[in-house]
């Protein structure tokens, strides 16, 4: 019995930290692959509505974003408080949509161009007038796949 105790006491339980970098690297690679750089800073307030019949947007590189909402406070002096369109990271007119779409389209490989989806992030309280105009522009430029961005609603029915 004494022999056992002695042996245990001798070997100090030092945890090897040699594999620590490997573990960290593993985590690092995971986050590197899932990271999507935030490319556009929102200049309009967008509070998207809730819905139940949602489809996930799979490939981020095939998606372009169009924001519609009331300009945030610092921009209200210049832009007013009526809903505005934001393409990329700046305010835009509705007529600029075709150029914006084309700029995105040329970045996408030719084979995948038919799969491009426009994600419309529109504030709940915006009226349909501007939305209808945007939709017409999208149709004119042949961008027919559209995703109305929405949050998952927990309940099934409207209250």
């Amino acid at each position, binding site marked *: 019995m004494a022999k056992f105790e002695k042996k245990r006491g001798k070997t100090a339980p030092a945890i090897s*930290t*040699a594999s*620590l*970098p490997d573990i*960290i*690297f593993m*985590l*690092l690679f995971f*986050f*590197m692959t*899932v*990271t*999507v*750089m*935030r490319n556009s800073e929102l200049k309009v307030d967008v509070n*998207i*509505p809730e*819905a*139940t*019949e*949602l*489809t*996930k*947007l799979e490939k*981020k590189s095939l*998606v372009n974003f169009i924001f519609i909402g009331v300009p945030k406070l610092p921009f209200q002096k210049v832009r007013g408080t*009526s*809903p505005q369109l934001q393409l990329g990271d700046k305010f835009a007119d509705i007529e600029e949509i075709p150029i914006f779409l084309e700029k995105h389209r040329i970045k996408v490989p030719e084979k995948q161009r038919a799969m491009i*989806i426009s*994600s*419309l992030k*529109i*504030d*709940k*309280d*915006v*009226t*349909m*007038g*501007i*939305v*209808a105009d945007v*939709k*017409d522009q*999208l*149709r*004119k430029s*042949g*961008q*027919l*796949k*559209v*995703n*109305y*961005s*929405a*949050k*998952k609603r927990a309940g099934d*029915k*409207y209250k």
Partner: protein
Amino acid sequence: MARKSAKDKVNNEVNAGSMADIAFLLLIFFLVTTTMDQDKGLLVKLPPWSTEAPKITKLKTRNVFSVLVNANDELLVRGEPVDINILREKAKEFIKNPLKLENMSESPKKAIVSLKNDRGTHYAKYLAVYNELKAAYNELRDEEAMKRYGKKMEDLPMDKQKLIIKDIPLILSEAESTSFGEEK
């Protein structure tokens, strides 16, 4: 020579102790910049743009499920004011027409949903209505899949899903918005 090689040996040992620190630094950077939120939404296919006047096709009124949303966010479904809570049930009943009523769709294939809104309609309401209509179709397809294969739509292989979609197609026509309401 012997001394030199000994020196080399010492120099060749790279200190890997700080490797973890470097990796940590990078890790924290990516942790901060990562946005995990997934983009979801209602997928919609817009009709292609054409400048020529649309062909006037006579539709039987019994096959058209007209939904009007006015600037006060009120619904008019087939001429009657309707609450959004029962829109889904109404739509399902109309599309399927289980009692073979004279004033409802002849078959799910022939049913057409016509959606019209005002320029003053709120986007939230428009999307809610769209969502309900889509939900009605999804529920009908699920029921049909259950009946035929005993499985839900999402568990079926693609070809069977396509068969059901072909039998219960979502035909939604959106009319030009009216402009009675006030736009913001």
